[in-house]
């Protein structure tokens, strides 16, 4: 044990000799200073980010067995839940995590609205956050169809019906997001691509901007 600690200390020293990392880690992580007035409610955004990481990780695990094909989607999810060791847990964490993430994103937004943090100089934080809220709900919606159950089929049917209320273009939008007149295998493939690549990539881009801007303007403090 003490040899292990010695080894870690040595690796740390050698890295410090070259990159001087310890002050950077201390300033940004282990001894990061936050305003004394910050309440625990300031954690909602960070917790939403933590859940995003969990979703990415469990999502990659589920991807090893999931098949985005109407013939096999339901079977593959059942296989994950009943045959893969601990698959039931990974699948459940992924589905509960989606609900938790939406709840946390809304709590984060409620705090920002209530304390009026969105005002100058933080307007762009709000805008990137709005895009993140949309992307999060879209990820939850597209993910809901993937197990291809009755519930998810009709959920997607009702959900994709909503844009038909748009004047003139409504019907066209519905056909475009359904990839046809009805929910079919093409819808599943489209939702799958959105769910695992397009929306997460958009999320990561917006999160990088969101976090960099917070670093630049600093955490908001009450007047």
């Amino acid at each position: 044990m003490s040899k292990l600690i010695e080894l870690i200390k040595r690796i740390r020293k050698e890295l410090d000799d070259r990159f001087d990392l310890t002050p950077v880690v201390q300033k940004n992580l282990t001894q990061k200073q936050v305003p004394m007035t910050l309440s625990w409610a300031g954690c909602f955004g960070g917790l939403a980010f933590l859940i995003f990481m969990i979703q990415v990780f469990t999502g990659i695990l589920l991807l090893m067995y999931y098949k985005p094909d109407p013939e096999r989607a339901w079977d593959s999810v059942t296989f994950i839940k009943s045959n893969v060791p601990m698959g039931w847990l990974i699948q459940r964490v992924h589905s509960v995590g989606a609900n938790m993430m939406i709840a946390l994103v809304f709590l984060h937004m409620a705090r920002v609205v209530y304390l009026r943090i969105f005002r100058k100089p933080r307007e762009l934080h709000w805008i990137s956050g709005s895009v993140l809220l949309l992307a999060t709900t879209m990820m939850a919606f597209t993910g809901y169809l993937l197990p291809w159950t009755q519930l998810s089929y009709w959920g997607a049917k009702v959900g994709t019906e909503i844009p038909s209320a748009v004047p003139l273009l409504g019907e066209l939008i519905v056909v475009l997001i359904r990839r046809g007149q009805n929910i079919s295998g093409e819808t599943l493939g489209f939702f799958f691509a959105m769910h695992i690549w397009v929306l997460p990539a958009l999320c990561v881009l917006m999160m990088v901007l969101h976090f960099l801007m917070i670093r630049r303007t600093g955490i908001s403090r009450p007047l």
Partner: protein
Amino acid sequence: MNNNQDNQRANAYACPKANSPAPVSARKNRRGFFHVCFAMMTGIAACIVAFPVFSFFRLPKRINTARKIEVPIADLSEDQALFFDRQGTQIALIFTERQPKVFDSACTHLGCLVKWDPNEHIFHCPCHGAVFDDKGQVVKGPTNVPLKKISFEIKNNVIVIS
């Protein structure tokens, strides 16, 4: 005045002693104790996460359990050959002279999968031209090792390969 005080409060940072030098023996004071507690809790949490994640990489039940191959003799016709996957190895079942025979269909030369020729009653290897007869014995070719026999049993006129 009051406003000024609030400003001072807002500008104060938590953790005021963060920059003070670390004590010589961190284990002997309260902060050191909390460091150890925190490290232990992190370790326990890491184990709780690691266990299901590592379990997830074990083979699922379907792939892990041996599946029996069952062929009713009534379904076979004379000189017919059937090929199966038996847990990753390819096996060949042939039915000649009213007798079933089962072989590992990998050629004993370099492991290509042999083909059955029903007209000449031979296994023919497409890679280097080895030829085996219907008992697995070498007729011709770069190898002199016969095809590996696979044991099977017949229960109620059904061939069972476990």
